[in-house]
């Protein structure tokens, strides 16, 4: 391996990091100081730091209600995801008639983006009577194909000897899953939880077309509505941005490895 100087690499990466981080800093700065809404040239260091825009946001919109809606929908989606995907992944580790058809179906569903289904999805949810409810908001997101394959790969890696021993002992199927395979697949469960939560938390289009009453709106919807009420005249909009970004960032920083592993499992053998 040849020796090459390291500092140009560090320099380039620092510049790239700077470009990626500057928007965060800018928003955080304005959310505590309210500058650069009208003033030009912009100041780099905030003067007159005050946290009261956050108080404004809390009372100007029903933030607690929106937060509760987003949280409830995400929790439903995550729990349903883990259960359904684990079940489907387990079923796919066995061979049975029609398995290839099912696999083809799943793979082709990956190519259908959500945006191509909004009109029928809306009509179907209406027919089910689930418009404007947490269950209706969560339902299209209750299963994802990437996560099914993650579970399948994780279950495939469980040694057959364990399963055979359990079968000989007479355990029923669901107990095999619950007591043997799930504890060995905590990584897959963690990845599933993170991915499902983030996708459900950030979802904007589906709540936009589904919710009728202001009560059931989720955070992204509330943010967009806040923008159209207040335009960008106060630092409150940016405080709202920070309040909305914080949970996603926190979750990402807590669970980086699982998140990245889940996203790249398609880049290696599924």
């Amino acid at each position, binding site marked *: 391996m040849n020796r090459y100087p390291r500092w140009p690499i560090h320099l380039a990466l620092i510049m790239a990091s700077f470009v*990626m981080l500057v*928007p965060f800093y800018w928003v955080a700065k304005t959310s505590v100081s309210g500058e650069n809404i009208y003033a030009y040239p912009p100041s780099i260091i905030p003067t007159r730091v005050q946290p009261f825009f956050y108080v404004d946001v809390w009372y100007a919109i029903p933030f607690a209600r929106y937060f509760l809606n987003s949280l409830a929908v995400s929790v439903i989606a995550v729990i349903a995801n883990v259960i359904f995907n684990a079940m489907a992944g387990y079923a796919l580790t066995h061979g*049975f008639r029609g398995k290839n058809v099912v696999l083809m179906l*799943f793979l082709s569903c990956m190519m259908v*983006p959500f945006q191509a289904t909004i*009109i029928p999805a809306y009509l179907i949810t209406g027919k089910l009577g689930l418009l404007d409810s947490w269950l209706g908001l969560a339902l299209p997101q209750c299963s994802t194909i990437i996560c099914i394959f993650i579970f399948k790969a994780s279950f495939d890696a469980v040694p057959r000897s364990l399963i055979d021993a359990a079968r000989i002992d007479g355990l029923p199927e669901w107990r095999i899953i619950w007591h043997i395979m799930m504890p060995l697949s905590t990584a897959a469960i963690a990845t599933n939880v993170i991915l499902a939560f983030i996708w459900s*938390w950030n979802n904007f289009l589906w709540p936009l077309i589904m919710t009728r009453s202001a009560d059931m709106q989720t955070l992204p919807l509330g943010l967009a509505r806040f923008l159209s009420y207040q335009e960008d005249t106060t630092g409150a909009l940016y405080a709202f941005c920070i309040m909305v970004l914080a949970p996603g960032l926190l979750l*990402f920083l807590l669970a980086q490895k699982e998140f990245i592993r889940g996203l790249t499992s398609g880049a290696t*053998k599924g």
Partner: protein
Amino acid sequence: MLKHRTRQTLLLWCFLAPSLAIFLLYRVMPVVWNFVLSFQYWSPLKPAEFAGFDHYEDLWYDDVFWQALWNTLLVIASAPIGIALALGLALLVNAEIRCRDVYRTIIFLSYPLMTVAVAIIWRWMFDERVGLINYVARSLHLVDKPIPFLNSFTWALPSVIAANIWQMLGFYMIILLTGLQSIPHELHEAAAIDGASSWRRLRSITLPLLRPSIFLAFVVGMLNSITSFDLVYVMTGGGPGRATEILVTYIYKLGFVQTKFDEAAAVTIVFFVLLIVTAWAANRLAGGNAGAAEIE
């Protein structure tokens, strides 16, 4: 013995049932429904009538549709720019330096964020009067007067594309990084011993072996940018005039603002066909069976 087999198969199908139900309900049926709906006159109040190709004919003569289609094609064509940048970053991060995990985290930070918030941030950064982009451009004396990025017909779509690339850069980089790290070291060492320069090694070893990752990054990037409803809706709402209207926003406006569900269904079918064709073309360009996500 037979009874146990059928019981087990039945159980497996029961396990598959919930996921299958959701996909049938929310992925398969909608495609079929859209297809049927695009050939009918239908509104929620009247029963359906057969319409033949009328809606498609209306689309053919619809200027907005062509503008949206053109914009969508431009957005797809911009995905390689992001991938090229991410490839550079991935090569840098893959080098043996300290703190590479820190760099990786920082660059990936933009992906898990709410796109609505990202759109608001970039909307403000591109602002004509107080935006950071204009400030930097004017400080570096690149321009004299501020550029109205989101209000001009020429700059609106590139601005949206730039914001999209900013958000996706980390994601592309992670995919390419995973691919880079799966190239065995011995190949590079053997080539270095044989006297190949770094540049030569990059071209002949790294890039060909990276093809599946590049293909995957392109498909994901294309899927993401073709469906970037959130970004366009919040940043420009379709742009000055229709300058940033993409097919997805047009579907939304036709279906849920003008409640013309049947015409929106026709646009959806065109959108879906475009998606399939682009993925197939990318597959051909990558040399067929690009090797991503092989299932045993």
